[in-house]
């Protein structure tokens, strides 16, 4: 707090406080954007757009309320309002998926980061975002529900379905070890993910 801000009009002081909080949230916004787009460049574009939308709408934000949830909601809305299919589709390289997914022998074995990224990318969008918000973003179900604009029960069921689906996808690496058609299995997963995300 310096002397200029003390002499500044209340709006300017409020703006400064808002800006400080917003800046502190940038790393989180980037991470959330990355999980939505799957692409670092597109994610930063999205995060910057969301940051600016939040800044422009700062007058409507009630200081002292949950700015993280508020900005995540803005980012999410921004994501869905933009052309997003192209981002996701370039990510979903089926051959890369087949190459990367490997069998799991030990259930406690660490999950490879690349596998998880691919697995996450295959989930229907509404499941992916619910899982990321609750499982990584540190949001309560109630907050995630607000961000996604749906009922708390819906978030709970999406998270639980996402967990099961993700485990299924990651464990499906077993197919290739048995000599069964991993490509076929992966193809159907991709087709299903595509159908579900297209059905919105």
């Amino acid at each position: 707090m310096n002397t200029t801000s003390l002499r500044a009009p209340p709006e300017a002081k409020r703006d400064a406080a808002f800006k400080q909080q917003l800046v502190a949230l940038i790393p989180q916004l980037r991470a959330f954007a990355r999980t939505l787009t799957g692409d670092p460049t597109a994610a930063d574009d999205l995060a910057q757009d969301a940051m600016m939308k939040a800044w422009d709408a700062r007058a409507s934000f009630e200081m002292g309320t949950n700015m993280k949830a508020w900005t995540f909601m803005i980012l999410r809305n921004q994501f869905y309002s933009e052309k997003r299919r192209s981002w996701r589709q370039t990510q979903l390289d089926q051959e890369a998926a087949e190459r990367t997914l490997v069998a799991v022998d030990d259930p406690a074995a660490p999950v490879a980061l690349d596998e998880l990224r691919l697995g996450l990318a295959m989930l229907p969008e509404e499941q992916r975002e619910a899982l990321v918000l609750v499982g990584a973003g540190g949001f309560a179900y109630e907050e995630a529900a607000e961000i996604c604009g749906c009922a708390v029960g819906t978030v709970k069921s999406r998270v639980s379905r996402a967990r099961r689906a993700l485990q299924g996808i990651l464990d499906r690496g077993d197919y290739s070890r048995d000599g069964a058609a991993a490509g076929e299995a992966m193809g159907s997963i991709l087709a299903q993910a595509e159908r579900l995300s297209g059905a919105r």
Partner: protein
Amino acid sequence: MIEHMAKKSPAKGAPSLDDARLRQQAIGAKLRQMFDEVVNEPVPDEFFEILRRADARGSENGG
């Protein structure tokens, strides 16, 4: 939805409940790691630059 669900008999090597829980924990830990890795990246200067410009613009217009 999935027809072969009817064959409920556990296949050889099917994961037990405990195994499934361990798997979920491993996946959950990795998910957080994946997210936190991005959180811990340095924020590109572009972000601050954009915000600084917007702030300056706002002040010029009288807030």
